[in-house]
């Protein structure tokens, strides 16, 4: 077919995402990244080289047909673009915002070898926001079998999408009152507006996926009961909900939070709107966030929005921060300070039991540890104190142990559910994926696991295992 339509312009500069200006950001919790304009999206789409052998598709954990969806966008067919994305991923609004595409498609983009790669993530988001959220014509004949998915985070969501398209009747069980797992309690609305999350979950609902919130598998019903109630297989995607503590004196003082609690109060319970919402949060004049990952950035950016002077304390150097570069940039733009090579030693409180001071110690970098990063070594005698009113420990988490505790026959390793190469746990027809298997990881890898699990469940049930 002869090539028609607008010309490709790979040498044009990569379009920059428009952002809300940092001053006005900290006045509310509106989304910071505004997304491409129509013109920008068209210009950016035209930068795609239309490779014969597109590496981006292979690199995408969900193997979205990036080349085709961009081609549709060039033609101005945004609904078509959304349909192409939806073949693999029904959550482009979520993924276009939170996927670390710089590690996957954009890293593999051929254009990136000499110039900047195509902004695939921003284009995906544009397609989601611009095209009307069509239901989709990918319905399958029901095959009469029921699958239960435990947890409504990214792993279960994508598994539900894949299973429902194979004809399974799917129920997602969620412990909290809102759906989305870490997307709801962990990721702030200024990074992922809640209506986007709700809309994309509603797509699943429209396809027939059943959602059951306020239901804790292991407490409200056991795994065995789910099988007795007619489910043929269960996927466990319960995430990494157990927060790590700093294990320093003073950790239980008032005003000291785990990132999970701080973020849950704000993201899920809307404490920023207290007393209109019923849940308060204590954010004082000065906030210290301990850690260097995305949760640390999220917590610090929230503290800024609540008017607190905010510093991120990280025991290694800037190069070792684990957060996405763009999140670090956003935090700095919003006035978050960074204190590198320092770690908390203890916290001191006042007579009411509220935290008032943090004693820190300076660190230097030593030989790489098991994570491959230089290990932080305390410098003796370098202790110093800083005044503080709110402390957030964003130093990682382990799998939520509720279901494992109620199901002792399920084999785990340091709390993580052990699976075989087919995604199956030590129990027949029980599968697992995402952070409950990996420990703390990313949304997109959880989605990849959910997809693999759906495939494995389908195979196992077909084979009658």
């Amino acid at each position: 077919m002869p090539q028609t339509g607008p010309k490709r312009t790979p040498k044009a500069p990569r379009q920059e995402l428009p952002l809300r200006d940092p001053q006005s950001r900290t006045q509310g919790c509106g989304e910071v990244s505004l997304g491409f304009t129509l013109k920008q999206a068209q210009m950016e789409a035209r930068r795609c080289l239309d490779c014969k052998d597109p590496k981006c598709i292979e690199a995408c954990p969900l193997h979205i047909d990036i080349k085709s969806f961009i081609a549709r966008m060039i033609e101005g067919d945004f609904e078509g673009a959304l349909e192409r994305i939806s073949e693999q991923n029904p959550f482009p609004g979520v993924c276009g915002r939170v996927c670390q595409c710089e590690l996957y498609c954009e890293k593999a983009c051929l254009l990136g070898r000499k110039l900047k790669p195509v902004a695939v993530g921003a284009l995906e988001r544009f397609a989601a926001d611009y095209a009307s959220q069509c239901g989709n014509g990918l319905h399958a004949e029901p095959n009469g079998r029921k699958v239960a998915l435990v947890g409504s985070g990214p792993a279960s969501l994508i598994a539900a999408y894949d299973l429902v398209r194979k004809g399974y009747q799917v129920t997602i069980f969620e412990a909290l009152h809102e759906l989305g797992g870490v997307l709801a309690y962990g990721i702030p609305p200024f990074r992922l507006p809640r209506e986007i999350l709700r809309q994309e979950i509603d797509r699943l609902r429209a396809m027939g996926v059943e959602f059951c919130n306020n239901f804790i598998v292991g407490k409200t019903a056991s795994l065995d009961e789910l099988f007795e109630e007619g489910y043929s297989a269960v996927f466990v995607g319960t995430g990494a909900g157990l927060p790590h503590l700093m294990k320093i004196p003073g950790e239980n003082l008032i005003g000291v939070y785990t990132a999970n609690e701080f973020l849950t109060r704000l993201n899920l319970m809307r404490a920023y709107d207290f007393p209109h919402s019923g849940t308060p949060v204590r954010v004082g004049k000065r906030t210290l966030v301990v850690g260097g990952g995305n949760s640390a950035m999220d917590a610090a950016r929230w503290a800024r929005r609540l008017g607190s002077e905010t510093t991120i304390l990280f025991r290694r150097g800037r190069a070792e921060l684990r957060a996405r570069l763009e999140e670090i940039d956003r935090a700095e733009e919003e006035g978050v300070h960074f204190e590198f090579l320092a770690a908390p030693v203890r916290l001191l409180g006042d007579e009411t039991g509220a935290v008032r001071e943090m004693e820190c110690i300076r660190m230097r970098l030593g030989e790489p540890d098991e994570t491959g990063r230089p290990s932080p070594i305390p410098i003796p005698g370098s202790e110093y104190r800083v005044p503080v009113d709110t402390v957030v420990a964003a130093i990682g988490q382990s799998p939520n142990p509720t279901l494992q505790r109620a199901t002792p026959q399920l084999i785990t390793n340091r709390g993580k559910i052990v699976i075989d190469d087919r995604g199956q746990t030590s129990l027949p027809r029980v599968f697992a994926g995402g952070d409950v298997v990996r420990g703390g990881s990313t949304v997109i890898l959880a989605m990849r696991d959910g997809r693999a699990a759906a495939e494995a469940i389908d195979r196992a049930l077909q084979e009658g295992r």
Partner: protein
Amino acid sequence: MNRIFHKVMLAPEVAWLEVEAPRIARRWKPGQFVIIRPTDDSERIPLTIVDGDAARGTILLVVQGVGRTSRLTISREPGEAFTDLVGPLGEPATIGVFGRVVCVGGGVGVAELLPVAAALRRVGNHVTAVCGARSRSQIILDAELHAAADEVCWSTDDGSAGFHGTVVDLLRSREAEFRRAGMIHVIGPIPMMRAAAELTRAWGVRTFASLNPIMVDGTGMCGGCRVTVGGKVRFACVEGPEFDAHQVDFEELARRNSAYREQERLAMQNHECRIGLVLTRQG
């Protein structure tokens, strides 16, 4: 879902609620709790399960209106429903054969004694319920306690009924009998649990306390309910709510529970101001 079937006001600010929760009614055990959000904007609050009826598919909750959310909870009427209700949460209370058992409850805590006392009696213990109220008008569930325990005695702070003094004073007054108990279970306000624990420590009687820290999710995710027990940090929502009372750092628990008192007070004031305004306008 979560519909209120019956409501009885046991005392001016204390409601007895029968709530639809068929799955919880089938699985709950004494000592476990639920988390509810009475309305859309509410915070999540933990409430101990007082009873459950698998056949009716309901559970019983006894709620005292102290803060904004608990007052909203008791203001709901039969036919209405709580927005959210999840459970059963936490580990069940310790139920075993101890011979003589004393169950000590203060305030609305006496409601939470009911299932524990009944379960302890069912396995063959002789159970005495030692209950405290501020005054005669605050005495609740007396008949139910008599049905659950072998013996029930009351104290009132003002002496208007039963023993004149606190529930811990009452406990102390019967030291000769109670220090021979095999186990003591305590639930109520923190100062009361702390005083009871100090007394029974001196007696050398094993004592369990059912704790009531601030919680958010109730599934071990946030760590907001952490308490220090025997020098170790424990999450009350998943490892408790019951712990060895002699090991609990009650002082820390009391401090942590006061974390939002000022914010709540201001919110409440605001709320009442607004209600006042509406009333004035209507008047």
